């Protein structure tokens, strides 16, 4: 995988996903040590290119890089005084000149990480592009499910919320399907993307039906501007019809787990009591985030290989 780009779960096969999850399992142990650092990527340069602001994801990538002893450089073009429109070619060329071993890109518009990857020599990891994909989020979600449920194959995973605008939804749909789960989506009708059944998911507008017998419920974040009339008439109506609370969880399996990519709009997507304790695994998701990103950096960072792996003896 060295030198490959990670643009989306759509480009990975099941073997790739398992490799990343297995590696992340090992990386978790590093986070449990007193000295949370290994020399593995010492001297490597990882550039975080975040066009769209994000404290949590960027911090997670930064911690991951530093735990592997890499040099992490942060670029936030959106915070500079540059004009709003970034020339993709110029950005990629500027990056190339820094000789990075890996570039992490987040952008508000789908496709930018891919376009940069097409031009850049170094591998690109997509940290979220518009509504397209957020592969490391889906990977940490799959890792969390695998840890708690000890498998993914055969589970029923229900994703609830603003599917239309959600890259987390798309990446998770690809990922869980590839790993053999049944995936359902539930959303208010205007938030169901056109032709989404063609991806292989079952579509529901009734939350109750979508939750029936589910092993995993994933609630998505809904943006404020979409709660005030353009897509959904009000917060009250959304949380009554699609918010998850203990009562609604009775339709799911007894050992259902509740997930959320964060940050949670308490009382909107998840009721207050569900956010902190089991069946919520949200904190596990966050912890797994660093491990997954360490695994991704470990597996992908670097340039074209010079020689093959021999025996280290």
């Amino acid at each position: 995988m060295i030198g490959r780009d990670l643009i989306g779960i759509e480009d990975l096969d099941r073997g790739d996903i398992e490799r990343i999850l297995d590696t992340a399992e090992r990386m978790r142990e590093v986070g449990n040590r007193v000295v949370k650092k290994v020399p593995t990527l010492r001297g490597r340069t990882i550039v975080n290119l975040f066009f769209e602001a994000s404290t949590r994801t960027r911090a997670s990538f930064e911690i991951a890089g530093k735990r592997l002893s890499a040099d992490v450089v942060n670029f936030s073009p959106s915070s500079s005084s540059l004009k709003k429109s970034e020339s993709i070619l110029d950005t990629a060329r500027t990056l190339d000149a820094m000789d990075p071993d890996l570039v992490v890109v987040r952008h508000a518009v789908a496709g930018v990480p891919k376009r940069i990857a097409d031009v850049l020599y170094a591998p690109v990891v997509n940290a979220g592009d518009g509504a397209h994909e957020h592969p490391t989020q889906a990977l940490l979600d799959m890792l969390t499910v695998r840890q708690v449920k000890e498998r993914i194959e055969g589970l029923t995973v229900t994703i609830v919320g603003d599917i239309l605008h959600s890259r987390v939804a798309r990446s998770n749909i690809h990922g869980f399907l590839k790993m053999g789960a049944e995936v359902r989506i539930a959303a208010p009708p205007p938030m169901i993307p056109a032709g989404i059944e063609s991806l292989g998911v079952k579509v529901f507008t009734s939350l109750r039906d979508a939750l029936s017998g589910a092993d995993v419920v994933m609630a998505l974040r809904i943006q404020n501007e979409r709660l005030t009339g353009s897509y959904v008439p009000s917060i009250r109506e959304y949380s009554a019809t699609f918010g998850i609370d203990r009562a609604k969880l009775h339709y799911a399996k007894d050992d259902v787990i509740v997930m959320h990519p964060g940050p949670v709009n308490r009382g909107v997507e998840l009721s207050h009591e569900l956010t902190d304790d089991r069946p919520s695994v949200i904190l596990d998701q966050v912890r797994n985030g660093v491990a997954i990103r360490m695994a991704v950096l470990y597996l992908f960072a670097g340039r074209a290989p010079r020689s093959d792996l021999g025996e280290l003896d």
Partner: protein
Amino acid sequence: MSRILVRGGRILDPATDRDEIGDILIDGDQIAAVGESLDARGAEIVDAEGGWIAPGFFDMHAHLREPGQEYKEDIASGGRSAVAGGFTSVACMANTHPVNDDPATTDFILDRGEHDSPARIYPIAAATRGLAGEIVTEMSALVDAGAIAFSDDGRTIQSGGVMRHVLEYSKLVDGLVIVHAEDCSLVGAGVMNEGPVSTRLGLPGNPSIAEDVLVMRDLMLAELTGARLHVAHVSSAVSVEAIRKAKERGVSVTAEVAPHHLTLTDEATLGFDTNTKVAPPLRSAADVAACRRGLVDGTLDAIATDHAPHALHEKDLDFVEAPPGLIGFETAVPVVLDLVRKGEITPLELVRRLSTNPARILRRPGGDLAVGSIADIVIVDPERSWLYDPAKGYSKSRNSPWAGKMMQGRTVATIVGGRLVYHVDKGVLVP
């Protein structure tokens, strides 16, 4: 007076349904003789063996960007690109800077066309002032200045009331009103066709119904007012059917389709290449099939490129920021030949839609190979294989989804008013 003999090609004259091997003799700026083994004395020979000889193609929808945006195209470079593609006449849209809603701008464009362009340039004036969709333009003054039709293309008149008024008023000058049909509130933030592909890519979708509702609205308004309507760049199956039904009812409507909507689907956007971003967007396979059928059965009368140049730095932005549009003069012929290769249309009928019909709709000379007619002629080699590199083309811009692709079929020579202005071995030959 100079003479040219176009020799030994397959003569395709839709005006007389002539499809046979022969020669065409040009004397001065007119066609002097059509037949076999014509006397070549004193004439420059242009060899057409193995190729088609057709009336020069007429592109009734192109953006030449002058005045105002000459960095991406001007009338000179656009004209050269047009003749390199086989187009002897080009009708250019009004969304320039300033907008062509004024006789002075129309006059400027005509003047530039006459002096700088090897192709004939016909300005289309705006239908509403500033393209703002509110107040009708001075159609009578614009026609006097030389405008050949009216269109707000680039924008759409969103208000039904205003469109009705525009159509009514156009009857004063028996004008043709060309509509770019898109209901903006249904387009929303859409940047590509709404469907399974936009869902996979996570890009906001522009549903085909945004085109359909506006096409249907304007068809009904045309029926009500009796005005002459032309629907630009049809891309949706439902719109094709609506136009078909309207024609059956006797509505005075014509329509055009672009080469990209006849061959590319929204799957071309996988990979996020902004050179596949166009308005209306590339649509589904079913829409493409319907457009092809519509072209063949005559529902869609003409092929028009909607040549829309944009600079590299403009297309090098993210998919939402990048402006929509593709250049099209030099790729139109090989792309639309696909319909001939697949047996869906005959060469003669294809030529009719590239040449005769546009000329007829716009009521301009061209589109036939009769003795005495203006000598606007194109020679096409339908088999010629070549690699398309927009950097080697004549347009100032390079935004094409066919960049780097092998093309089959090419214009090999273009003659405007009896002058050889382009030959594939020598390039554009004027001024």
